[in-house]
């Protein structure tokens, strides 16, 4: 007889494992199936976590060489790339074990294998050893995430032409690295290797970097990254890559069309985005509808058109962010349990973990203009923030956008040290439908970087005090 479950989650990433945990908390019998063999999905294995380990260590390396001498510390830093990678691997290993522990703690069965939906209520798993197993369940949650988007005419081999996955495990520091795509993945990994010594060129099809981020922030961000030594070629497309002797020859063409040119490099990183992973799951066979981008179509309660099958995270619409998947996991399982789970998509923060960091939540100025919303702006530069001065990290600024009429916070954009942590206050403000005045009138410890957010909030109603 097949095993009986309340919820079977396909995918063990932030969406999947959090769904399984929440199901366990609510007393639902659940299983979480992942084919990788290590739980945690892209985020933990080849995404957020390993990249942050490398971003941290590479930043320390650069600081040791560039910053410490200016602050009265004499040192001689030497790169041990293998050691750096070992730290990364250790972190990933520990966190993966942590996820397995959490699944166990919440009585969710962790199953390693490839899952396929045989019919609503029935999931077939090809276990690691090749044997089949059938799970019967009341609810199926698809949380299969996303995969690297391929670039037409360029085949990724994870050696000389790599995706983010390969770029996290290069054996040597390449002399030259060409990054295709100026989104957050390309800029983060480009930063890692630039700090470790690579000459980094970023080629972007659009005429700006970090599409989707506030335009003013993006412009300043590019200026800072350029100053750090990153080169940009915007409005340019990559049409092909050839191995040419020891190096790789990349063919470029203006986005609008025109004469081709070539650029030599050692490693090509393809980072043009991610696509939902909805293949090989039997979705077509059971009739689950996908949209034109091959994302699973769901309603506000994450239900697909097929009764008993839901989808969360990267494989459905919305920002491809680990915490968005996590939020949806909680809401989706709560809905299954008859509770009122809900995700507020206006209050999901997004962070680029470069240095300085860029973080945002809510609407950008461009979006507000397009929507015809009247808004007010408050801004505050970190050059005027005492803590930023003391830690010698004065680049960037905080920007608060609020409704001109009722002062409700609509968007907050921060570029600067620790921006990823600073943004959380703004996410909470938006979630609580707070006014900019509420941030401005909330006590902020001195001296901290958070004061910049407060001063920017004050600026919305024209009473920034420390500038």
């Amino acid at each position, binding site marked *: 007889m097949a095993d009986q479950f309340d919820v079977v989650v396909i995918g063990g990433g932030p969406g999947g494992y959090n769904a399984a945990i929440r199901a366990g908390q609510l007393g639902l019998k659940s299983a979480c199936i992942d084919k990788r063999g290590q739980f945690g999905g892209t985020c933990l294995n080849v995404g957020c976590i390993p990249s942050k380990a490398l971003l941290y260590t590479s930043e320390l390396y650069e600081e040791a060489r560039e910053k410490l001498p200016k602050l009265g510390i004499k040192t001689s830093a030497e790169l041990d790339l293998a050691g750096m990678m070992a730290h990364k691997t250790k972190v990933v290993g520990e966190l993966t074990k942590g996820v397995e522990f959490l699944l166990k703690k919440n009585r969710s069965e962790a199953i390693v294998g490839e899952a396929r939906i045989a019919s609503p209520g029935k999931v077939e798993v090809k276990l690691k050893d090749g044997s089949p197993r059938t799970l019967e369940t009341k609810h199926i949650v698809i949380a299969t995430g996303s995969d690297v988007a391929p670039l037409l005419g360029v085949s990724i081999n994870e050696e000389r032409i790599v995706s983010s996955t390969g770029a996290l495990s290069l054996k040597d520091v390449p002399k030259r690295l060409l990054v295709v795509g100026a989104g957050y993945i390309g800029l983060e990994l480009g930063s890692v290797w630039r700090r470790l010594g690579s000459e980094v060129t970023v080629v972007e099809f659009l005429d700006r970097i970090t599409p989707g981020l506030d335009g003013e922030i993006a412009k300043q961000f590019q200026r800072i990254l350029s100053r750090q030594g990153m080169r940009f070629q915007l409005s340019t497309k990559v049409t092909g890559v050839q191995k040419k002797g020891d190096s790789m020859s990349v063919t470029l063409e203006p986005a609008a069309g025109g004469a081709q040119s070539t650029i030599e490099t050692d490693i090509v990183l393809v980072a043009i985005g991610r696509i939902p992973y909805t293949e090989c799951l039997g979705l077509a066979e059971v009739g689950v509808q996908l949209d034109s981008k091959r994302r699973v179509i769901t309603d506000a309660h994450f239900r697909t058109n097929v009764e008993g099958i839901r989808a969360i995270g990267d494989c459905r619409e919305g920002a491809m962010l680990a915490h968005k998947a996590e939020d949806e996991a909680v809401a989706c399982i709560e809905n299954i349990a008859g509770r009122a789970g809900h995700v507020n998509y206006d209050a999901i923060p997004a962070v680029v973990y470069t240095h300085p960091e860029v973080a945002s939540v809510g609407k950008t100025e461009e979006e507000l203009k397009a929507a015809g919303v009247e808004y007010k702006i408050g801004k505050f530069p970190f050059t005027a923030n005492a803590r930023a001065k003391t830690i010698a990290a004065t680049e960037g600024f905080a920007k608060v956008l609020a409704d001109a009429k009722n002062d*409700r916070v609509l968007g907050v954009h921060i570029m600067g040290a620790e921006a990823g942590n600073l943004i959380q206050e703004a996410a909470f403000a938006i979630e609580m439908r707070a006014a900019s005045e509420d941030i401005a009138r*909330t006590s902020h410890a001195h001296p901290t970087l958070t004061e910049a957010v407060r001063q920017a909030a004050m600026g919305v109603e024209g009473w920034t005090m420390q500038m």
Partner: protein
Amino acid sequence: MTIQIRVPAMGESVTEATVARWFKKEGDAVARDEPVLELETDKVTVEVPAPADGAIESIDVKEGSTVQVGAVLGAIAEGKAGKPSASAAVRNPDAAAPKVEAPTPKLSSAGASKPVAEPVAEPVASAAKPQWNVTMVPSVRRIAEESGLSPAQVSGTGKDGRVTKGDMLAALEARAAQRATQPTPVEIPTGPRPRADREERMKMSRLRRTIALRLKESQNTAAQLTTFNEVDMSDVMRLRAEYKESFEKKHGVRLGFMGFFVKACIAVLKELPNVNAEIEGDDIVYKHYYDIGVAVSTERGLIVPVVRDVDELSLAQIEAAIADFGTRARDNKLKLEELQGGTFTISNGGVFGSLMSTPILNAPQSGILGMHKIQPRPVAIDNKVEIRPMMYLALSYDHRLVDGREAVTFLVRVKENLEDPQRLLLDV
């Protein structure tokens, strides 16, 4: 078990009330249905009965605070033995009077601060109480304090119904718009009063505030003026003297003057429909029913209960209705719906000895008749001086709707009806 005491529904147009008096203190014993506090609304005073036997566990809303229908006022620990209360003394209005001005309703602590002196209840009670409606985010607190607008009166659009700054601003805007249609109030002098030591300051009761507001509204809206006449009451008095006893014996109610006046007015209102009509926007609303408000003075102020469909009532029925209103008004037992509506009002200043007055319209009505003292006066009858029981009559009317001719005719016809009551019988 804890049972909450809530503001009861008090009629469809009433959404809020002021806590006038608590008859009980925390820890006091209460019996089910025993009044525990008194609420004042725009129109009536309502006693809130205890929902259960037990002891008062908490009093969450101070006297003087404004509360919404359904709001939690306090709680009773059901079945718990409490101290016998000195409720008789507390319920004496004189004893309680100074309390009214003492607690300025504090915006931030309506439900949050509980005296901790007498922890008579299980701690479960406070956990169940919704706290968010008194928790204010900084911007809301500032606006509340600066404007005096209580967030409790604003419906929140924030997470889980919290009140946001935007909600407060919108509510203020609505309030300003409402005020803009009214003339600017007289500037209130600020600073210490030179002789404050020999003055007493009291918060206006809710009823008094409403009276003030309504009367001023009435004056600001209608084009009011008053016309006078006088009536010789000889015939009515004679009729009354003659039939007083048999009337009372038959109907069980005293034969007064009021019934004659009501009857006299109804006949004329039918003849002059404008006086029974009202202006609404650009329209005139004519009413084919005759609901007559009869002004009654009570200790707390003037109220106007309404006798419905008076044209269908007999003299005895009218007298009975008015007598009943009088009694119940003194006992504070009038129901809210008995004070609403009305198409015309009769006010009797005569009972206090007034000889002449100009009553203010009971908006949106278009006419009010003022009765006065009956006084023997020399009048010329057939070119001879005679002493007759005379009364001055006043009709205040809305000149926007009622012409001078109609107003004057109204009083003349009322006078004729009263000087020759047989006309009422014959309907001429």
